[in-house]
């Protein structure tokens, strides 16, 4: 499984802290951040408007990009541009 986490405005918009996505060896083609995002919007069409291009992404607590590959056991996080400080 891959754990997908959402933060801040995105978490509230989706009404979801996290979900687990099947990522076993039989998943083909192999998942990347971009294909995971596509899979989520196919599964939850009403999320499409929220999972748009401006979001940032991290994989296993390192900043990542669309073509970052994913493997079983990974933690993926999507979040809006940051506003701390």
């Amino acid at each position, binding site marked *: 499984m891959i754990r997908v986490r959402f*933060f*801040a*405005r995105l978490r509230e918009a989706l009404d979801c802290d996290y979900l687990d996505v099947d990522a076993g060896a039989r998943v083909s083609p192999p998942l990347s951040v971009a294909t995971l995002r596509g899979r989520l919007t196919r599964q939850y069409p009403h999320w499409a408007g929220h999972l748009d291009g401006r979001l940032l992404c991290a994989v296993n607590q390192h900043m990542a990009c669309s073509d970052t590959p994913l493997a079983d056991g990974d933690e993926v996080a999507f*979040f809006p541009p940051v*506003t*701390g400080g």
Partner: protein
Amino acid sequence: MVVVQQGDFDVGQQYRRLCEQAGEAGAVVFFVGRVRGQGADGVVRALELEHYPGLCERQLQSLIDETRRRWACQAVRVIHRVGRLAAGEQIVFVAVATGHRAEAFQAAHFLIDQLKTRAPFWKKEHGPDGARWLDAGANDARAAGRWYADAVVL
């Protein structure tokens, strides 16, 4: 040193701890960010600060490492609070000790500029008419980008 915490911090105590690590460094510059009582849309009663534990501390440490590569720092300290903070409360403490004042000012300025655009914190503003998530500001992105000579600043 990086700390993300709910509780407040004592600037005097943090300054003394920095000095303990800084040896005989000639200059200390620190910055404290506080909850502004006046936002773009009116009165702010409180801010709610959310973060991504783990990635947040890692990003802050990597910003400190980058700061140390640019300037010879004897000590660097970052404290950032999370949770609900009322107007006027302290949010963030960034402190740098170096040999001379010019690099202390620059290093502290660099660090807070990068923190604002690269550390995973998010602010939700609470006012008399309800709450709203703040948008990342173009000014903050410009401030962070100007430290990189080859950056495309829009």
